């Protein structure tokens, strides 16, 4: 996409420079400029791009294929998560989400007050947390590690600090929780 746009920008600028420096010649053909370049060229680029977008969009939609389900509840200003714990039982945590690597994760996102948005930049797209509805986003992390997440929709005074982390572990090797703040501890 980046290379494509750079090429288009260069093309337009070269055309402009050429139009400027061109020695006196014959006039321009209206159909070449408006229909050829304006409609034909642009349509071709767009159809390819939008088609690709549909295809990728379809592929990353959540679907019922037994993905791990976790819940994320946003509030002013923090995140509460519920995920499968080390023993398979649901585990509630604040500001930290634990998910296994290499499997698709469906995150059910909701909010208790205003609109927030769940976003882990290195793992994929964002999804808004809207009061009154549950939105599902699908993520998949290939490499274990700690990933940073944040609230991407402006939500008031604490917006800048509404961060969380996602800890991705090897399936079956749930990290040690003893030195982490979990659901039991209030802030």
């Amino acid at each position, binding site marked *: 996409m980046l290379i494509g746009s750079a090429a288009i920008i260069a093309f337009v600028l070269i055309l402009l420079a050429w*139009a400027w420096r061109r020695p006196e010649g014959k006039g321009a053909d209206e159909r070449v*400029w408006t229909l050829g370049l304006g409609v034909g060229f642009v349509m071709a680029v*767009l159809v390819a791009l939008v088609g690709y977008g549909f295809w990728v969009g379809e592929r990353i939609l959540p679907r019922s294929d037994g993905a791990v389900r976790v819940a994320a509840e946003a509030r002013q200003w923090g995140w509460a998560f519920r995920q499968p714990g080390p023993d398979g039982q649901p585990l509630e945590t604040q500001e930290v989400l634990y998910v296994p690597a290499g499997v698709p994760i469906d995150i059910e996102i909701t909010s208790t007050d205003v609109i927030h948005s769940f976003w882990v930049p290195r793992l994929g797209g*964002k999804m808004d947390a809207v009061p009154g509805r549950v939105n599902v986003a699908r993520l998949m992390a290939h490499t274990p590690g700690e990933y940073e997440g944040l609230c991407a929709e*402006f939500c008031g005074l604490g917006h*800048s600090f509404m961060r969380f982390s996602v800890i991705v572990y090897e399936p079956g090797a749930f990290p040690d929780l003893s030195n982490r703040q979990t659901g039991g501890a209030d802030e």
Partner: protein
Amino acid sequence: MNDQTQSVNPPQRALTLHRELTAVWSDLPGWRGVLASVNHGTIGLRFMATACVFFAIGGVLSMLIRAQLATPRGAFLDTAVYNQIFTMHGSIMMFLFAIPMLEGLALWLLPKILGARDMAFPRLSALGYWCYLFGGTIILLSLLGGVAPDGGWFMYTPLSDKTHTPGINADVWLLGITFVEISAVAAAVEITVTILRCRSADMPLTRMPLMGWYMLGTSVMMLVGFPPLILGSILLELERAFDWPFFDVTRGGDPLLWQHLFWLFGHPEVYIIFLPAAGALSTIIPVLSRTTILGYGTIVAAVLGLVFLSFGLWVHHMFTVGIPHMALAFFSAASALVAVPTAVQVFAWIGTIWKGRPELKLPMLYVLGFFLTFVMGGLTGVMLAIVPFNWQAHDTAFVTAHLHYVLIGGFVFPMLAALTYWMPLICGRARVPRVGEAAFWLILIGFHGTFFIMHLTGLLGMPRRIDVYPDNPEWIIPNLVSSIFSMVMAMGFALFAFDIVMQVIFGAHSRRNPWRAPTLDWAMSLPAPAYNFASLPGPGLDHADAAVALARGTGWLPGAPRGWRETLVVNAGSGRPEHVAVLPDNTMLPIATAAVIGSFFMLMLAGLYWLTPLALVAIVLTLWRWGAVMGADTDHAPILVAKGQSLPVHWQVRGTLAYGGAVATLVADSSLYACLLFGVGFLSVVAPAWPAPESGLSGLWSAMLIGVALVALTLGALFARRAEARRGSAIAQTQTRLGVVSGVIALVALVSIALLLDDPTRHARDALRGVLLGFAVVHMGIATLLAARSHADARDGRISAQRRGAVPVWRLWQDFALATTAISGLLVAAQEVL
């Protein structure tokens, strides 16, 4: 009548004509002139100057934002103030700079370039200006008072509701912006009618300057696109003030309704801003390339495509709210498709440069700056139209960069080109050399230095609207770079302003038509006189070269021999002259009306709801005065406008400008009503917490009352028709009296329904019924006032075989009130039955 002669009237002494016209058309001297002016030249320049002041204020706010973000732990502003500042930066630039700027350009330029003496509704121009100034001032004062809006310029609920924003910050936004939008809708009505009816003699729509097409597209988009936001603001203010739950999920509302209404306005808004700028480009590029525009018809078609398609994109601002993929895909495809008409124009402009001999004058520099900037902004826009990419980049600095590329590239650069291009016509002076070029380079370098790197910042994951980022060292360098270059850009704008001031004070007198342009805006002496043309242009006199001939009165309708402000009104399609409109003189009425409307908004803001009926009465009284000075109680002989061509004055024809204005107003009103119906449909299908609780409205009483109202409305429509048909006889007065009576009966019936309504705070359905009823009452009230106005006209002898007074407009409103009330009644009945 379309012959080859160069003159349709005998020549006179130009100076005598100039004195005669100046006496009639100029503003009053001194302070009264400031308050009472209705002249489009004065008002247009005021709009533009005020918009530039707001641009400077918005710019200072952006400097504060950049100062805060220059370091990761900026302690320059606290979070609460920072939130107010970025909200105000966005709101000021959108509502108090961009929109008024384009309105100002339209008001100032259109009569000149189309060959008329003034806009169709001079008093409305003035009213629009005062509403803008008062509304803008309220918003600014809130910033000084530390209670400015702080929910972001798109004011998402529930963050902006009473629970989460208890102060008056959000009310300032909702009321202040709505006040300013009254001025925008007024301008849109006026621009539409002016372009369709106030062109030079025999200029067909298909031959008017492209600027006319662009502005027509803009104004129609404003008529349809602003009402969604006005409705949204009314609903949100009702929720904040009276707890009517339109956006509360627990009581049948949905915060997404606000987002739909906002973006239904917000995306067309981008094109509303872009189209006038593109019009300026289509005017300037051929002149400075010494050729004609390439592909006139194709550009008109592109404008047509943009006007429609831009209403099919609004959901692309909502790709992450959890809407199904197919719905996203519709809007994704539409968003990509809208790039086609935009690209057609860009290539037509480059083709125009190609076939001409471009000259690197200062406006052309800004045109080149536009090409570089806007093409990049357009491409990032296409990227954002792709759903998966949007999920990643949405609400990050990438979007901030994109929208500044589009708005500064697509609006500010062309506007700077337009200002430098038309300055000689505004002030009559040539500019001081070289300062302008320096300003251009500072702005261009500063702009790209600030915003190019912001794409990267966004892709690095920096969201919008945060004030500190202590844990993200990777964002430090790009933010610092942006902040440093933003100072360069600010210096550029300061230098631009300095250059303009220099030109006004020290510039040498400019010769007439300095750019050797063909259009009529240059067919006058510099600076432009208050009356524009001593005689009006037409066939054979439709080029800037006709300036001298027009000044000597050889065109249509020369001078002001009757002491009236006269201009030609033409057929919308063919441009054939149809009648002579006598336009209003200087008056204080607009500022008085704006002041009472302002007092209504101030009372709402202060929460003094029980006092607001007083303000409403005052509004009605001033509006009554507007009608009282229209029309005439005697017939006037047809006016000789050209050799062998006499035309009636406006009070003796049916298709007046005022009638056209009423039609345009109803277009905007229909858009508002359609959005209200959309709200009902959307909430009942999509919102949780439906179906609504049992309703108390199903009884016989409510059915009877609505029946009475509809019968009275129908009778009123009949009376209006008969009053017009029998206008020559005494029966007319009986009909208008009956019209008033039936209107009052309908009003009483409608108001009585309010007693049966369920508590609107209980559920969104009940609240929406309250709004539907309120809509019906307001429209019935206006229709009754128009009936009363018609009755006063009949009583005072303003209605005769030739004169119709306010009756046609009354009839139009009566029909509209009848139709909407019937639809609302059916809708509620359907809700009850289903």
